[in-house]
């Protein structure tokens, strides 16, 4: 099956531009005429991933592959890793600092939102090495 591949660098020091990759993907999906429900789910989940990479990992890379019936996203960083995935998946749990919270982030909803909006989610993490989050979306 043919697909469109895109790759984005997420700048780890830039909260202002955070979300540019998600917005670019959203635009592409719109141009391709994908269903609005899919577009919204992809955009939100990917934005959460971008924010996580900025807050916790000094940035990373987002690889996106768009198919006629869905989207696959790989968010790769070389941050500190997730110590306890089960805990990190709980709504409200966050290790973000107070200055991050003042910006409105760090509610502990990032990974839960990604799980909520994606159809498939896998987390591969190693302490001190980094984290890769896979998100799969299907046209419903």
């Amino acid at each position, binding site marked *: 099956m043919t697909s469109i591949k895109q790759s984005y660098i997420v700048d780890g020091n830039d909260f202002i531009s955070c979300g540019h990759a998600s917005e670019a993907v959203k635009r592409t999906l719109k141009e391709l005429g994908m269903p609005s429900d899919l577009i919204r789910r992809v955009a*939100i989940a990917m934005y959460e991933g971008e924010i996580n990479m900025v807050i916790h990992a000094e940035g990373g890379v987002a690889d996106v592959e768009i198919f006629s019936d869905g989207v696959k996203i790989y968010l790769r960083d070389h941050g500190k890793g997730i110590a306890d995935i089960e805990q990190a998946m709980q709504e409200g749990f966050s290790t973000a600092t107070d200055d991050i919270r003042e910006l409105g982030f760090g509610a502990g909803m990032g990974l839960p939102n990604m799980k909520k909006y994606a159809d498939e989610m896998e987390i591969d993490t190693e302490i001190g090495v980094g984290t890769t989050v896979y998100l799969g979306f299907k046209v419903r």
Partner: protein
Amino acid sequence: MTTKALVESIDATLYAPCAKDNIDAFYVGDFLSRVMGKAPSGCAWITVMNNINVAGVGVLADVAMIVLCEDVHPAEDLIERCKTENIGLVSTKLSAYEVCRNLK
């Protein structure tokens, strides 16, 4: 309710016009991820958060209008971004509670 009626009912100052004439869904909250998880598409989002990321969340979550309450005046970059993205942006002196009380 109509967007015009909404703006008038909370005596709001308009900073960026809303692309929609009617808004029938609303969400109140300041934590951006909560907004993205819960806010309905096409809603008016009532908040006190005032930074450029608010527009980003608005774009990604398909928010129609951002209502800044408690006399929070939007930053210039937030105004410009909302204009570019056709997201309505208003500011009111009312609290979030008072805004909601005025919605019909």
